């Protein structure tokens, strides 16, 4: 499951790069230089950071549930970890949907 999610997030990241590249092309040379140094690069970086965080939480959740099945972790610990994992997964899915719909919006744009 985790591999699929990480593949998905890296896919999202590359998609995002292509989206921002499209923006550079349409925006022209002088604004694209500013964008590359400033906000766009940091946005995809932030997204990558957030998805890494989400993957880490999912891993923690899985480890906690395995420890819970073994009887090594308390029920409260398992519930807390799994709930954190669920929240990050839902957030990741919501952000992915947003990014995909933004990409589709751009690709549907008439030139």
């Amino acid at each position, binding site marked *: 499951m985790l591999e699929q999610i990480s593949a998905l997030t890296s896919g999202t990241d590359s998609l995002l790069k292509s989206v921002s590249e499209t923006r550079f092309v349409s925006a022209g040379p002088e604004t694209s230089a500013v964008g590359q140094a400033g906000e766009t690069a940091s946005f995809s970086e932030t997204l990558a950071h957030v998805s890494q965080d989400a993957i880490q939480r999912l891993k923690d959740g899985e480890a906690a549930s395995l420890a819970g099945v073994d009887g090594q972790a*308390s029920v*409260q*610990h398992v*519930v*807390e970890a799994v*709930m*954190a994992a669920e*929240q990050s997964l*839902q*957030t990741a*899915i*919501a*952000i992915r*949907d*947003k990014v995909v719909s933004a990409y589709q919006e751009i690709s549907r744009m008439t030139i």
Partner: protein
Amino acid sequence: MSDPLSAALHISSSGLRAQSERLRVVSENLANARSTGKTAGSDPYSRKTITFESEFDRARQAELVKIKNIGKDKSPFTVEYEPGHPAADETGYVKMPNVNVLLELADMRETNRSYEANLKVMTQAREMVMRDIALLRD
């Protein structure tokens, strides 16, 4: 900066942990309500008490609850006349634990209420987070 909702989840989780530890102590007291000493005239099981304290979590900027101490109740033991008992002293009296079953049951109820309250906080915080995510979704 930490997320208040996830801090709330973490705090109530520490509350759940504290209350389950309290239930463990109550169950020990109840199970050992008639546990006497092994040798003649020796002390029986003495009731355990649990106390809590707050602990500041710097990462989340929140006060968690943690177990301060699991101590022993110093109140006197009751004695019962039972000359045939292995723990009876020379006058035939056996020291019985200072566990009051009614008190333990009342404590258990309070533990249950507190656990439920913490669970409610958890449910509420989770619901709020999920609503936020749903806002992002559509």
